[in-house]
């Protein structure tokens, strides 16, 4: 009886030096997949290869053999010996393999909990294997289910909700203040990768208009073009404060370029409209006292990092919820898979009894050639009732047993007792 298994290594078990030796790009992976599947040891196979994990999901009679075959072939590409990789491999089969697959897809096994890329990678791996005709019914069922579980985790828990990068954390804070960012005006002071990234995120969320200023006028104009904004002279920054909602600063200035007094002055015309400073500069560009002013919020780089850390803790808490959800889904999946295992036996049992019934009914008609329609209906109904009543108890019992996990010996016994032929016929 072939068995589902997963075997591989990830950031949790193997150093980058090994992972980078095994990870392969799509074209190469296609070749390897065809070879591994073609060897005839695995009836189904999907290979997931990312920078954090290389895993083989398969269905094989002897998982150990299949695993050696797959990783020998994966290693060949960059000349890595199987013996080198083998101690780092984990292998899980049956229910544990199902659980592993669900956890990976739901980003519960990721280096950064809840990171969104993994689901795309999982989908690509599946599509590639399908393309190579290496996917059979079992893996198809498993993987499509894994996608559904991943989606469920994303919508029902907040595993991926809160930002874990500084620039996104800033955007999220802005949303906690303003609700929507649609139509919120932004002033970007100075240049820097992180500040530009934050500005881009804000623009993506509908922030408008964008003002840009820089000590170097040419640089200000250049950035204004990149962000579809307006360049403002550096000297006019204090006046611009009054008209915007969000200010991102990131200059190399040795001392604050936005003074508390400037902000206080601009507040008079604002009618308590909130003003949010995102100060990414080191040393800080905004005088710290600004945060004490009414309706003004000022976050420096350390504050933002603190928010990120808190978000990570929040993800950990949500991960517990997600784990419980995965656990439930695994139970559902295995129950159904086991159900599927007894279904062929039940079907052939029913077919067998039906054949007997048909034969005996025909014989009865032979004896009673003059039977009228009513008699015939009675014979049909009676014989069907007998078959159904005989089938009822074993059908229920088999389904019950299948959930207990001892299904195989029982189905075999049923086959023996009723002369249903070898188990091979089921496949």
């Amino acid at each position: 009886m072939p068995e589902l298994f997963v075997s591989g290594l990830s950031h949790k078990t193997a150093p980058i030096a090994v992972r980078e030796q095994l990870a392969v790009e799509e074209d190469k992976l296609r070749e390897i997949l065809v070879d591994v599947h073609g060897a005839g040891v695995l009836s189904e196979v999907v290979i997931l290869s990312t920078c954090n994990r290389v895993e083989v999901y398969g269905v094989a009679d002897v998982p150990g053999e299949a695993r050696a075959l797959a990783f020998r072939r994966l290693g060949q590409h960059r000349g890595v010996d199987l013996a080198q990789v083998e101690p780092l491999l984990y292998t899980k089969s049956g229910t544990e393999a199902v659980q592993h697959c669900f956890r990976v897809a739901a980003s519960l096994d990721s280096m950064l909990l809840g990171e969104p890329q993994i689901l795309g990678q999982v989908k690509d791996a599946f599509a590639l294997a399908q393309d190579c005709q290496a996917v059979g019914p079992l893996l198809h069922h498993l993987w499509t289910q894994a996608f559904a579980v991943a989606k469920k985790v994303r919508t029902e828990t907040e595993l991926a909700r809160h930002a874990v990068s500084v620039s996104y954390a800033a955007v999220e804070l802005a949303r906690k203040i303003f609700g929507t960012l649609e139509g919120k005006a932004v002033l970007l002071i100075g240049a820097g990768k992180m500040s530009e990234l934050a500005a881009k995120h804000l623009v993506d969320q509908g922030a408008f208009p964008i003002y840009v200023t820089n000590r170097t006028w040419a640089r200000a104009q250049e950035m204004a073009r990149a962000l579809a904004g307006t360049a403002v002279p550096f000297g006019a920054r204090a006046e611009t404060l009054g008209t915007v909602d969000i200010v991102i600063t990131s200059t190399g200035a040795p001392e604050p370029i936005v003074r508390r007094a400037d902000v206080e002055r601009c507040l008079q015309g604002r009618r308590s409209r909130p003003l949010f400073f995102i100060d990414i500069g080191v040393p800080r560009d905004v005088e710290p006292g600004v945060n004490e002013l009414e309706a003004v919020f000022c976050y420096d780089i350390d504050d933002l990092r603190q928010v990120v850390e808190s978000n990570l803790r929040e993800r950990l808490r949500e991960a517990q919820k997600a784990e419980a959800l995965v656990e439930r889904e695994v139970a559902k999946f295995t129950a159904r898979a086991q159900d599927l295992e007894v279904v062929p036996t039940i079907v052939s049992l029913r077919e067998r009894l039906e054949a007997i019934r048909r034969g005996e009914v025909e014989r009865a008609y032979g004896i009673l050639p003059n039977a009228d329609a009513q008699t015939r209906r009675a014979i049909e109904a009676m014989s069907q009732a007998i078959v159904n009543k005989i089938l009822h108890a074993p059908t229920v019992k088999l389904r019950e047993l299948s959930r207990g996990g001892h299904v195989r010996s029982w189905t075999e016994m049923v086959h023996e007792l009723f002369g249903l032929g070898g188990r091979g016929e089921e496949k």
Partner: protein
Amino acid sequence: MNLILFDSALVGYLLATVLALVHLVQRQEAIYRLAVLATLAGWVLHTLALVVRGVEVGRPPLGTLVEAMSVVGWAAVLLTLWAERQYRVKVLGAFVLPLVALSGVSGAWLPPGFRDLAPALRNAWISVHVILAMLGIAAFVLNFVGGVMYLLQEHQLKAKRPGALYYRLPSLETLDRMTYRALTLGFPFLTLGLLLGALWARTAWGSVFAFDPLALFSFLAWLVYAATLGGRAVAGWRGRRAAYFAVVGFGVLLLTLGAGLLLPGRHGS
């Protein structure tokens, strides 16, 4: 009959309170749905209880202070269910329901007949006065809760240490909008209600306040709300200041309630 209904409604609200608080901590969608169901069940029972009560005593169920408070709770629950959807603030129930349940419990604890409305006041004119004022107050419950939530969230944002509440509470903007909406909703009701009361008092007693502490305090509360509304509309007040006023206004309303319960006056004895 109606006592059983009131008690069942109260049980529904208490259950909903517990569920809403659990949802606040655990944030499980399933628990939230249960909390909403329990709230709805409580509210339907509450509605029935009020109707049955009205039929049994042969007048609108507004004759005692406890009955009036019950109407406030009834309307506040309805408003909360609406606002939770309108502003997508699922944690609102966790803040409002404890207040409603508390008022229900303390109302049930008061002896029957306590502070019944003076018989001279049992007429349709007064019923309208009471119902308008109570509906206004229900909106101010929402106004108060929104203000408290605003202050909590603002504190979290200012302190820069996102705690559990930071994740659970909505944006400042949403809270400010909700608080303002509750104010604009409640103010006309309170104004009309008080106006009717004042007109009646003038006709019947020849004086508007006539040694009635409840009337005095409610006028004070009206002044606070009028000032907030004016500040918001004219001077563009918002955010923290508006939230403080919402809290102060509600504080004065509680004093009004206290005055009604403890001080002698013309509303009842």
